[in-house]
């Protein structure tokens, strides 16, 4: 790996998780405070994560196995915030009924 490719790949990988985290935070904040604008911004962050994923796949010298892994992770990131949210709501709803 060339020095430039090393730094570029590392920054892209950091951005990948950061964008995914920002999506989770904004999605959650939008849902809890009922602000559709925040949810939309969250989806925009996920859009950035998709672009970063494409950049990693197309431009970094990572091996094919890791590129496939990053692609699959990108799908997982899309699902985690809404799935976690639904689960939390159901858990709290059930708890509210039993108490």
């Amino acid at each position, binding site marked *: *790996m060339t020095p430039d490719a*090393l730094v570029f790949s590392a920054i892209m990988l950091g951005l990948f998780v950061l964008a995914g*985290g920002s999506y989770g935070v904004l999605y*959650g904040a939008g849902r*809890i405070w009922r602000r559709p604008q925040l949810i939309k911004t969250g989806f925009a962050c996920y859009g950035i994560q998709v672009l970063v994923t494409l950049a990693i796949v197309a431009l970094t010298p990572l091996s094919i196995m890791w590129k496939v892994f990053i692609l699959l992770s990108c799908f997982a990131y899309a699902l985690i915030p809404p799935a*976690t*949210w639904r689960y939390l709501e159901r858990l*709290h709803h059930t708890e509210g009924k039993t108490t």
Partner: protein
Amino acid sequence: MYRSQKLALRYFTASATLFGVMVIAGLLSATYYVFPHFLFGIFNFNMSKILHIDTLIIWLLMGFFGSVYWFLPKELNRELEGIRLGEIMFWVFCAAVAVVAAIFIFVQYGPGDETSLWLINQGRKYVEAPRWAAIGIVLIVLTFAYNVIGTAIKARRMTGILWVLILDLIPLTLLYLDAFPAQTNISHDLYWWWWLVHMWVEATWEVLIGCIMAWALMELLGTSRRIVETWLYIEVMLVLGTGILGLGHHYFWIGTPRYWLSIGGFFSALEPLPLLGMVVHAIYDAGTHHMQTTNKPAFYWLLAEAFGNFIGAGVWGFMMTLPQINLYSHGTQWTVSHGHFAFWGAYACGVIAVFYLAAQRSRGLNMVDNRSWKWGFGLLNFGMVGMVGALLIAGIAQAFFERAEGGSTLQAFVVAQSNPWFEMGMYSRLAFGFIFAAGYTVLMYDLLTVGKRAPAVAAQSVAA
């Protein structure tokens, strides 16, 4: 207040004191990078570094013990079994830490024989404490396990959190036995040494802090037991599932088989996923309580825990964990940056949150909120973010110039050390270190005086 809660307060005092020693030793270590001749021959870099990283382990461990001693009697509605022994072992712990620190400061090292291993230094990073002290730590951990398990048996009551905690104590204790070096082959030695360091920090400690945070959430936000326990099981499963085999991300340059690199890369790359779930959960909890609580500092430190863990362990970790990157970044200041951020987010913020919860309950305060905790919170987090940013820049410069461009030769090492990006990173780290130290000072002032100084707060105390 239960006797075990009084013991918890003593543990918190010792923990906070060692946190301070860690900060001072860290500042000293950072100074050596900028002024290499500073205290040369009197108190060398290796000793300040040992003090810095060993007190890190001990202050957090004491914080964890204190937290369990604090919450457990409330969990089981009874005093802890063997509390007298627990109290004795606390003083043994403090005395051992003081003697070992004195040895590190005044004796430092000895000849490479068994006597040095027994009395001075075992020479393995994070577990340098001489053998007699390591035996003492085993006894202290066993006493702690006896306190927890014995109390659960006597109370004839088990909760989900307690099951998780007790099961976690088994590997926590057994893994520490690896602190006694028995291998003369350096590759074998490092292979097993990582089992202790990694499995403590990225497995058993994660579970331990998960249990403590579950109790903290119940006390702070009144979250129901069913919710915190369900979430604890999921988190423990995910964290252990990704964390245990993430061990392989340490196995670079020590002669371990090549397959470990892919295994470690794969499992540690999965680690951000459960952390993302935790962040979403933190937002849900914060939102449902409208950011309102009777203990603002504890609440904000808990939030900092969730976010810090995600950014420090997740973002910083993912940046460098894939083998093709790790090959170059391993052992540079880049790793140091990740280590600082991850420890801060995953553990330190949580322990500080419990400090505040204990301060509130022990002083009978209805409300904890003032200006000084905000200053402490702001300075500590700003200082930490500044330090890890500076270390990241220095580390990337090292990986770029020394490893990728220079081919890891001695000449490349020297060139990288004098690179302006590296030097600027080291200066900036020291400057932010002072900000962090100022934050620590404010935090201690606030913890010592909260509920005692402001009439407005004092008026709200239960006692009044």
